[in-house]
């Protein structure tokens, strides 16, 4: 199986879907001539031309509004947010239009669009450019929220997202764009709403998605040296959530740690902790513990940035807490 980066995986997902379906088109800031601020759209303008790969003004609400309108009339737009930090300007289009029309029109109007781009911290881009906003979008009924952690998942999930009839918020991570992994050459998709066990273990369940999967994997390696076998569950799609894969794991390990890059306060990990405590109450030997970002704006300092983010060591510490050792 070829080994490619997540950047290449995302690019080939869009390329394949644009070849397969002429209603798929791409719009966003610098996606065409410049081939993407993070080069995710490399070569697409050359292959598909200006009608299907559109550069836009720096106007996120307009990008979202065009995408929503096009989707309403049967197109399948992919709207790139240079980063999700800027999607705040587009929230009215996403929350009040994309997420609502299928419901408010009694199913007559669908909004098969994808809004994608990087979310979360990169490296020293400070408070306004380092935010993990998944908790904002998962809150909205009508949206699908996807956060892949590997190149293979990224490609399979993005293809499913493009084909889905609901608005899909597809949150990538800048730090993961260069992550390499095996990706099948043949056509494949990964269904939305299906979680995945990234590492099998029997002693503790760690739930993590996107970049946090990396923290959790490193923590699992550290723990393995001490004879603790952590099971790592990656929900991949946060909404709808594959609860069963989490519950099944927790019923086996009796312990659960949730790792997320967002802030603790009302973060998505709280949703998971809530469901686990209710559905697995009699299986839990310890409270569910969350490892999150610090409850402050992201600092610029490199050292403070490290202290802000969930680190493998903090995951290890949380695991020890639920193991009582």
């Amino acid at each position, binding site marked *: 199986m070829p080994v490619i980066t997540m950047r290449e995986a995302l690019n080939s997902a869009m390329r394949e879907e644009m070849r397969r379906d002429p209603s798929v088109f791409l719009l966003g800031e610098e996606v065409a001539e410049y081939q993407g601020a993070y080069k995710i759209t490399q070569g697409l303008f050359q292959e598909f031309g200006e009608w299907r790969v559109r550069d836009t003004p720096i106007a996120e609400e307009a990008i979202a509004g065009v995408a929503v309108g096009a989707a309403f009339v049967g197109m399948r737009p992919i709207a790139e947010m240079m980063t999700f930090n800027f999607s705040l300007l587009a929230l009215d289009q996403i929350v009040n239009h994309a997420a609502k029309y299928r419901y408010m029109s009694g199913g007559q109007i669908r909004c098969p669009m994808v809004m994608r781009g990087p979310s979360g911290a990169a490296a020293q881009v400070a408070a306004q450019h380092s935010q993990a906003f998944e908790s904002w979008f998962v809150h909205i009924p009508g949206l699908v929220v996807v956060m892949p952690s590997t190149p293979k998942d990224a490609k399979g999930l993005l293809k499913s997202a493009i084909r889905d009839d609901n608005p899909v918020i597809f949150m990538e991570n800048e730090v993961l764009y260069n992550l390499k992994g095996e990706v099948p050459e043949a056509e494949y998709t990964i269904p939305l709403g299906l979680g995945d066990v990234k590492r099998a273990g029997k002693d503790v369940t760690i739930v993590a998605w996107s970049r946090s999967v990396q923290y959790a994997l490193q923590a699992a390696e550290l723990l393995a040296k001490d004879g603790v076998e952590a099971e790592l569950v990656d929900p991949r799609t946060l909404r709808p959530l594959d609860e069963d894969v989490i519950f099944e794991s927790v019923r086996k390990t009796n312990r659960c740690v949730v790792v997320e890059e967002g802030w603790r306060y009302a973060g998505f990990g709280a949703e998971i902790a809530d469901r686990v405590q209710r559905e697995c109450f009699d299986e*839990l*030997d310890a409270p569910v513990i969350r490892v999150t970002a610090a409850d402050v704006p992201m600092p610029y300092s490199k050292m403070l940035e490290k202290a802000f983010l969930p680190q493998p060591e903090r995951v290890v510490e949380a695991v*020890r807490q639920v193991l009582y050792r």
Partner: protein
Amino acid sequence: MITRVVLAKLSPTMEEGTIVKWSKQEGDVVKVGDVLAEIETDKANMEMEALGAGVLRKLLVPAGGKAPVGALIGVIADAGEDIAPTLAEAAKAAAAAPAPAPPAPAPVASAAPASPAPTAAAAPRAPIAAAPPAPPPAAAASGRVKASPLARAIASRSNVPLAAVAGSGPGGRIVKRDVEGYIASPAPARSAPAAARPAAPVPTVVAGTALPLSSMRRTIAKRLSESAFTAPHFYVTVEIEMDAAVSLREQLLRAEEVKVSFNDLLVKACAKALTRFPTVNASWTGETIQTHAEVHIGVAVSVPDGLITPVVRNADQKHVVDIAAEIKDLAARARDKKLKPEEFMGSTFTISNLGMFDVTEFTAIINPPESCILAVGAVRKQPVVKNDQLAVGHRMKVTLSSDHRVVDGALAAQFLAEVRRLLENPASLLL
């Protein structure tokens, strides 16, 4: 990270503990699971482990000192970390608590609602010291056991009384490994270890001095007062012909070199009889009479500070030879204060034997939440009438104390008749 070292609830009835010794000193690096201190509870000396890693920065109670369950007795933190706020908070909490206060409002979120409930002998439900005239202090009613949901589920599936399990989690929380450890704890080996030491001599006490109360003494005082003042006791005495038992014992010794005491035979006899009289093997709960599905016999053992009743579990199902070995082992470890909580908790009936002091007969106070206790005198050679002739025979007097709320006189008499029948035909005890 700051880890508060709080005095863990190391036995279900523990309200305060004495720090016998600190195994780590201020400045020592500790990791999770390290033994921090040896704690004297009301029942035994137990080790307390560190729940967090770092440097043991502060010891707040010196060796020999006492503290209530849940009280801050030390602080583990990183080397440079500021622990002043933690200490200040602890000082404030201590000041707020009345002086010798038992369950102090501990300065910890997870502070155990330390139950002063008299639950040494633990039925799954906390015994409710019933009704008037002497209701226990309000707090005693709660008797809440802290356990993880999983630990509760396993305990319930395996019929383990949670109150008998010592919790090793934060604040004494019972977790999965504690319940599994309890279930797995092996019955004492058949080949019993070294002979029990002779009972310790009575310590020399200077007359006229006030003796400080040990934790065990306080517990005895409280629980037995409560029993005596709450449960209406009555007493029924029978005399048992022990000639056959004496002969059986000699045969076992001579032919098999197996040493079985009268008390071992009595434990077996009572256990068998209890299976036939479930109402005697029961507890008054205030609302109902809770009969127990299993027969666990407590055997009172005198120890230097007082007494403790290690438990022979499911004695009705054990061979008398195994019972003998088990009691020998339990008694020896009781004197060394090495019993685990589950080894002295959960009895459903108690036997107190003063035969070794050549006592003819006596009455005992019921060990709550049980309903009966059997007080046993010595087996004595005495003149008896056999076939209208005067002869020499072995006799033993036993007195059953019963809680009249549960057991009536006729039932007590019937139960004792069964105990007597079994001991007078002791071959049945070997079945």
